[in-house]
């Protein structure tokens, strides 16, 4: 087990709306196994992104706990520096949008987190180039600035950046939403080939083919609650 999520609740108090409260997650419990690929599915607004952001602590949890076993801490209550340390060394997160850095080439965008965690620049760039070519990014774009890229090209850079450090726990929020079917297949092949059993993934996907190709188990959310948790083989036919 890598994570034990226990009755996780996230409420947003919106002062601008006279203190109206929005419920993002409502008492979600789930165990995440070491090395598994857990897909999170559910309709829009069902709490998928909120769950990932609570795990990454971009959202502060309202109640409940998130036991992260490798470091033996509750992510929901540990201090900011512990979170910073874990983010720097073993917990990765990526949304569907690339965080632009002005005038930094695609290869360097992908290599940067590796360099920042101490890898020599040339090895980091080599790994970056490998990942980008596996994702079918055209060679001439490697040294260009992603600001000028199409949505799908940018998302390939984003996904490569997320995969590059091979974190122990990887949180992916719709990392392939802008890819065409063929590139999605490349992404599936790459994720399967590149991430070994040392990496556990919790990933939000809208596309059921992606879920079936990648997931071991599927967490189904609805209205901020856990609706189901099932092995991927039983998932076919479930309408999210």
């Amino acid at each position, binding site marked *: 087990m890598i994570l034990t999520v226990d009755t996780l609740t996230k409420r*947003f*108090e*919106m*002062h*601008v709306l006279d203190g109206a409260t929005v419920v993002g997650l409502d008492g979600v419990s789930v165990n995440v196994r070491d090395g598994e690929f857990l897909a999170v599915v559910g309709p829009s607004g069902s709490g998928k992104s909120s769950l990932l*952001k609570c795990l990454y*602590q*971009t*959202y*502060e949890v309202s109640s409940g706990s998130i036991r992260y076993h490798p470091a033996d801490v509750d992510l929901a209550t540990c201090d*900011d*520096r512990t*979170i*910073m340390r874990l983010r720097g060394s073993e917990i990765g997160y990526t949304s569907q949008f690339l965080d632009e*850095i*002005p*005038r*930094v080439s695609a290869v360097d965008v992908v290599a940067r987190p590796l360099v*920042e965690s101490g890898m020599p620049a040339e090895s980091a760039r080599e790994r970056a180039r490998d990942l980008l070519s596996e994702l079918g990014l055209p060679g001439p774009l490697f040294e260009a600035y992603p600001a000028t890229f199409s949505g799908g090209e940018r998302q390939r850079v984003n996904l490569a950046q997320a995969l590059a450090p091979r974190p122990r726990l990887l949180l992916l929020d719709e990392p392939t939403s802008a890819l065409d079917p063929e590139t999605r297949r490349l992404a599936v092949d790459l994720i399967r080939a590149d991430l070994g059993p040392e990496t556990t993934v919790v990933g939000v996907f809208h596309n059921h083919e992606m879920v079936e190709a990648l997931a071991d188990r599927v967490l189904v959310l609805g209205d901020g609650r856990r609706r189901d948790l099932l092995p991927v083989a039983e998932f076919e036919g479930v309408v999210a």
Partner: protein
Amino acid sequence: MTVLSGTGLTRLYGDPCGDCESLTGDDAGRNRCPACGTIVACADVSLDIERGEVLGVVGESGSGKSSLAELLALERGEGHSRGSVRFDGYEGNLLESDYDTRTRLRNDDLALVHQHIRDGLTLSFSGGGNVAEKPLAAGERSFEAVRERVRSLFEQLEVPVDRMDDPAETYSGGMQRRVQLARALVTDPAVVVLDEPTTGLDVSVQARVLDTFRRVQRERGVAAVVVSHDLGVVRLLADRTLVMRHGRVVERGLTDRILEDPHHAYTQQLINSTL
């Protein structure tokens, strides 16, 4: 390991009546004492910074950010200051330290980058001279060694080295800002305090200067306090952020948490108004 910490940092401008702090702040909705007119620029702010960490301070104009930055950088400024500042390797409360200790700290270990370029640079001097002046004043003897250090900092910060001997007034705003950063970094301080690092820069230049700073900050492992009214600046640079209003810290946390899940009414308003 904590390198810089502040406890109960307070700065008042005026002739305080004794009730100034209880009559001002976030709940009172003002920073000017209604009884005596004293401005409570910042009150009871505590924070600590570890080696290599970047702390952001955001808030609207007049919320007390610069007063806090000055206290942390041990700038006397005007007004009544209270509280304590501690720095790794130095004894006691540095707000009460003698002139020599303060000078030593500010030459070797702690640098303030002023909001206005003209407060930080002598524009009629060469860019290189502005930077070299600091280690030379701190007692460095070898002019060649200093020049070499300036040259390599210019390279790191992407200031054209062949312009090193030109007067700083002939540089673009972005270059002047980079020279200011070089001047702050040249003595290898453990902490730099940046007050509004994008002031006076075109939007197109801002992101580039900030990104350069971020890279150099990480490469050198220098800690920083970055004060800005601009959430974008803090988003790019800071690991953790304090939100100030009416001289008080109203919210603090991981920067992405502050931006995506703001709790305090004021922070929510600040973020909504920039979207």
